[in-house]
């Protein structure tokens, strides 16, 4: 006992000492100036040098960029000395190199908290195509890239807005946008657009519509909400099934004809029920079939009309023909999501309904897959069926109403969504179309993928689907409805009718002013 007792105080003292030391160090470190600027690469004082590094991520040729990029920095200086006439606010300058007579206010000062989820591989792109060029033109504005991942983004923004301390630029979409607008927590941008001569016609009509609420624009789009649904087909697998890889299916009936040969080759044709996070497959195909989900005022549910019923029945029989139950046909992953590149990469499925980002993602994630792309198949049996892909959401940049430095926020939004550099380069590097019509004229984009024609056709066929602030609840019902007939708990027509009634009640309540 003596031995142990003597050793105790010593070891305890040791523990105490180390503990104190650790905590003192920790405290000291914590109290140290909290501005330990992480070793960022030196701010480009020489734009010409930094530019070549930037588009390393992009496939298209990099040669033209340095020259083009060097100009705005130089042009900005002399132009600033000769301000164009302006109406109130800081003096503005036109920077022609940024395209479409971009009107800038380089004297604006402030800090931007850019709340977004362009994470993972896109962070560098944001740095190179947005932040760096922006800071050259607007030396008085500091940009903080508050990047995280997408699922908790809205939750975080909601919390910040609720506490009265929102980030001034928020990346937001769909139901979130409608809700925030409804609660008057984001600004309508129409006046600012008019002041700075930003024309609505610069954008695809659908793109702007999906960022509007009750007739006003609440956010400017930075990537397309459209070009979400094209048909990708694995050419190698088609050959394996004895089909001609140059003749992808054009109609629903063509797809039906593929099922048997594909089955014989030990493969699966398609999991048609993976659309995206807020739209069901049934919605897509109903629109393809000449139908609609609801009217333009969102007052009446229309999905249980004959076009919708036909679409649902076709989808169900397609699944059953392939594998009898959806569980045998499902490609995996989260239900409310697009087919992910790694899911298609296992090369068991021939077809894949996906969006324009697929080119970039397949290249980086699964370059071994050989595929082609075409427009979505239509219903040969229905004369009203035509190519028409619904778009209800799309990412937008919005200004929070209760934020500070809103002038700076507007300059950022303007730069990233209208200027040639911002609006075009970011998406171009990903081989994606831009919501700005002009940007899509770029030879790099067209050369970036042989299927650009498909993308353009898809954009043109976009149909804007208006959403209410209660859209998340409607979306939930949509998925439940689809589950109901997909898992064969109800016949198609019955499921469509039942949920139409439920949704109609929600709509009626909403329009009557109740919640």
């Amino acid at each position: 006992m003596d031995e142990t007792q003597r050793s105790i105080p010593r070891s305890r003292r040791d523990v105490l000492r180390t503990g104190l030391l650790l905590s003192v160090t920790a405290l000291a470190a914590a109290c140290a100036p909290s501005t330990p600027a992480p070793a960022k690469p030196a701010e480009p004082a020489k734009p010409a040098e930094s530019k070549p590094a930037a588009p390393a991520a992009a496939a298209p040729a990099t040669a033209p960029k340095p020259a083009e990029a060097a100009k705005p920095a130089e042009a900005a200086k002399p132009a600033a000395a000769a301000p164009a006439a302006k109406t109130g606010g800081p003096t503005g300058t036109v920077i022609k190199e940024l395209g479409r007579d971009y009107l800038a206010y380089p004297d604006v000062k402030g800090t931007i908290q850019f709340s977004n989820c362009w994470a993972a591989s896109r962070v560098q792109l944001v740095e190179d195509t947005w932040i760096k060029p922006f800071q050259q033109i607007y030396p008085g504005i500091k940009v903080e890239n508050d990047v995280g991942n997408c699922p908790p983004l809205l939750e975080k923004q909601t919390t910040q807005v609720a506490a009265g301390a929102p980030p001034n630029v928020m990346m937001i979409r769909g139901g979130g946008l409608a809700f925030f607008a409804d609660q008057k927590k984001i600004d309508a941008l129409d006046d600012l657009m008019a002041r700075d001569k930003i024309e609505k016609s610069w954008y695809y009509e659908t793109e702007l519509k999906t960022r509007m609420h009750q007739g006003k624009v609440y956010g400017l789009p930075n990537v397309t909400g459209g070009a979400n649904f094209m048909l990708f087909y694995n050419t190698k697998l088609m050959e394996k099934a004895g089909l001609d890889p140059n003749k992808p299916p054009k109609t629903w009936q063509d797809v039906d004809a593929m099922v048997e040969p594909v089955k014989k080759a030990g493969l699966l044709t398609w999991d048609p029920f993976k659309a995206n996070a807020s739209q069901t497959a049934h919605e897509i195909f109903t629109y393809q079939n000449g139908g609609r989900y609801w009217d333009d005022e969102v007052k009446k549910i229309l999905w249980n009309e004959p076009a919708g019923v036909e679409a649902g029945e076709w989808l169900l029989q397609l699944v059953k023909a392939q594998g009898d139950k959806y569980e045998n046909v499902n490609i995996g992953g989260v239900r409310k999501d697009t087919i992910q590149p790694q899911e298609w990469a296992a090369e068991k499925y021939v077809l894949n309904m996906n969006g324009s980002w697929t080119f970039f993602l397949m290249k980086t994630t699964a370059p071994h897959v050989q595929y082609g792309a075409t427009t979505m198949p239509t219903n040969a049996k229905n004369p009203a069926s035509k190519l028409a892909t619904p778009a209800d959401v799309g990412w937008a940049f919005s200004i929070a109403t209760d934020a500070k430095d809103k002038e700076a926020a507007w300059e950022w939004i303007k730069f990233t969504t209208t200027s040639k550099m911002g609006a075009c380069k970011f998406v171009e590097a990903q081989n994606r179309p831009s919501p700005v019509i002009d940007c899509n004229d770029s030879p790099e984009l067209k050369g970036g993928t042989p299927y650009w024609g498909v993308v353009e056709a898809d954009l043109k066929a976009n149909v804007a689907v208006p959403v209410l602030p209660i859209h998340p609840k409607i979306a939930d019902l949509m998925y439940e409805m689809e589950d109901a007939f997909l898992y064969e708990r109800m016949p198609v027509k019955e499921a469509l009718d039942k949920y139409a009634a439920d949704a109609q009640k929600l709509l009626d309540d909403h329009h009557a002013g109740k919640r």
Partner: protein
Amino acid sequence: MSVASAHEETPGRSSAAMVTGRSQAGRIAERTVVYGLLGLVAFIMLFPFTWVLSLALKTPPQAFIYPPALIPDPISFENFGKALFGPLPFLLFFQNTLIIAILVIVGDLLSCSLIAYGFARFRFPGRDILFLILLSTLMVPFIVRLVPLFVMFQSVGWINTFLPLVVPAFFGTPLFIFLMRQFFLTVPLELIDAARIDGANELQVWWRIMVPLSKPVMAAVAIFAFQATWNDFLAPLVFLQRREVRTIILGLYSFLGINPDYPTLMAATIASIIPIVVIFFLFQNFFVKGITVSGLKG
């Protein structure tokens, strides 16, 4: 007696084994069973991580080729490079998380042992009700408390500092208070009474009797507190917005983004759990080769 128990194989069983005269064969059989079962469980536990490691060492184009290959060809560390030295200052996040974790551990060990002692060894009116209240604070999901907490911290300007994450630890964490209370309740009363008779005041009793006897549970709390801080997601997400103050897990999740970069995410996951694994490996002895200084021995 103390001599015998010093270095035998199974501290709790050794003298007993000597007394019951367990046969050599019996011991071999016992060991086979133990190794067998534990080995099986360990294998199952490690199985997902072989895959994680495999993915982390693959170049992105290799990642999703089917059929999946366990051993990458070629083996590449580029994902680790991307994770640790990419556009996000991972090492800074590491430092931030470490600072928070150490402070939280100190706060928890200090406050929870004091509070637990109060609940365990004192009788006072309202004690059991207060304890139930303590437990009940665990029953309201954090997601609904998030908004008011944020509003509160926002109003005192604590957002973007470590304070919302560190200060509450100095006022006790209910989970750990509960755990320590359970342990303190097993400390024999005679010890405490003996110390009190010797003239120690309550704080001295706490420091000289309760704390040393609780090394296993203190070690457990330290590890859990460290881990909880390391992996805490929701609180840092909302309270630490500026990049300079973020923690490692936020860095990890930025690899998820709109379309996840799985190989880099796996590399980042591995990098972020290495510290905890190392700490556990080194300190697990606290649980077993117990330095249980028990006054009852001999």
